[in-house]
């Protein structure tokens, strides 16, 4: 299985990359890690006239912790996020999720930005970007702009990226004392479900819960009804007690059908439990 012919441009900088995109008028594709695009090219599902290689651009692979946010460069490889010890406190779910992406070879090559731009609705980074209230920075020939993750992820495999635009950074919002991510296996199931959960604990109670769910039905979304249900509960009490209620709250826009709603609810429960068991992430300066 070999790709259809294409021209190849090795981008020297972001301007070069977006100019090449613009010149190709919608018939170019960016390649970074190539772990999603490579298979698509080989299977001829994608047939761009031009491939613009951004994998050697410098200065786009980083993790920058700022007060209340984490800036992730688009070219950061999944493998760089695998170990909780390498991450700033409050984003433990990234390590949990990274360790489960594909296989070591895929994690060594694939990039954070590539995953967000590909917008697979059950992808680790898409579901967690939603849970952490991320914003996305993109650059095009007209300059840079910033979008909320809900404005960026428009549907399954659909984003607000213009044909001359490139994603350069994803900024996650507020850190959380506890966070995790779980996904059902992609093999054998007709539907894959993914859940991201993040929350703080104050005086032993769940505070500021953030719950996102991804299914093939549409873009990953927060589920405010479930968040309201979890807020104020004793943190040590597993939400398993209210799993039925959670399933009932997952309407057809989130979970296509009652079976998926039950799977999603179970997944949210397990993700919450896993986050809590994994231990608290204290923020710098926070009393232990």
């Amino acid at each position, binding site marked *: *299985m*070999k*790709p*259809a*012919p*294409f*021209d*190849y441009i*090795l981008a020297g900088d972001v301007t070069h990359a977006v100019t090449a995109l613009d010149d190709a008028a919608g*018939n170019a594709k960016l*390649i970074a890690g*190539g*772990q999603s695009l*490579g*298979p698509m*090219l*080989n*299977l001829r599902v994608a*047939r761009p*006239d031009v*491939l613009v*290689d951004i*994998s050697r651009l410098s200065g786009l692979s980083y993790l920058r912790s700022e007060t209340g946010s984490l800036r992730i460069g688009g070219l950061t490889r999944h*493998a760089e996020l*695998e*170990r909780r010890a390498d991450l700033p406190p409050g984003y433990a779910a990234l390590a949990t999720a990274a360790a489960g992406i594909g*296989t*070591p*070879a*895929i994690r*060594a*090559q694939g990039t954070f930005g590539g995953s967000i731009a590909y917008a697979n609705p059950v992808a680790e980074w898409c579901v967690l970007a939603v849970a952490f209230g991320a914003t996305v920075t993109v650059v095009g020939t007209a300059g840079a702009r910033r979008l909320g993750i809900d404005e960026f992820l428009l549907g399954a495999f659909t984003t607000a990226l213009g044909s001359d635009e490139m994603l350069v950074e994803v900024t996650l919002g507020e850190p959380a004392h506890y966070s995790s991510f779980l996904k059902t296996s992609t093999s054998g199931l007709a539907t894959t479900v993914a859940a991201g959960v993040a929350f703080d604990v104050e005086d032993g109670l769940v505070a500021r819960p953030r719950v996102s769910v991804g299914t093939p039905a549409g873009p990953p979304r927060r589920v405010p009804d479930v968040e309201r249900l979890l807020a104020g509960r004793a943190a040590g009490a597993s939400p398993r007690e209210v799993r039925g209620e959670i399933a009932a709250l997952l309407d057809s826009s989130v979970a296509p059908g009652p079976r998926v709603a039950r799977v999603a609810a179970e997944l949210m429960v397990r993700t919450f439990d896993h986050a809590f068991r994994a231990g608290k992430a204290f923020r710098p300066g926070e009393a232990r």
Partner: protein
Amino acid sequence: MKQTDELTSRMSIVLRVNGRDEHLEVSPRETLADALRERLDLTGTHLGCEHGVCGACTVIVDGLPARACIMYAVQADGRDVRTVEGVQGEPQVQALQEAFSRNHALQCGFCTPGFLMLARWGLGEEGAARCATPEAVAASNLCRCGCYQGIRQAMREVWEPGDSGAQPAGER
């Protein structure tokens, strides 16, 4: 769909393959796997699925594992590429090969180079830092003959010699 004249869309690249600089003229769409196999006669890198799923084409590029079927040769320009041919005789690879043989970790052998390359990486410093385990490596690639148990056991013996918890094949 653009019609490209294949003969004029060649690019000159240099791959450092198994320690040797190789100067190649490749089409942009030529995969690293095909460049290794067709141009350098390094056919140890196998093509199982050609879309990044099976791992039979695993090589090491700049010290990191890569599926050569979904990397284009042009992307490896200037990079260090290690294939199964280039690791013969290394003590850990030798140990892996002997353990594979001892533990029935191969029948047809088609997936074996991919597993060997990934296991070699897993045993190295970078692999250890990423907590690569025999179980994780065995779960990464596909073996259509179903030798996973032997593959895991072979790797356990090399990961932890003398502490392999060896069980007779068939008993779990």
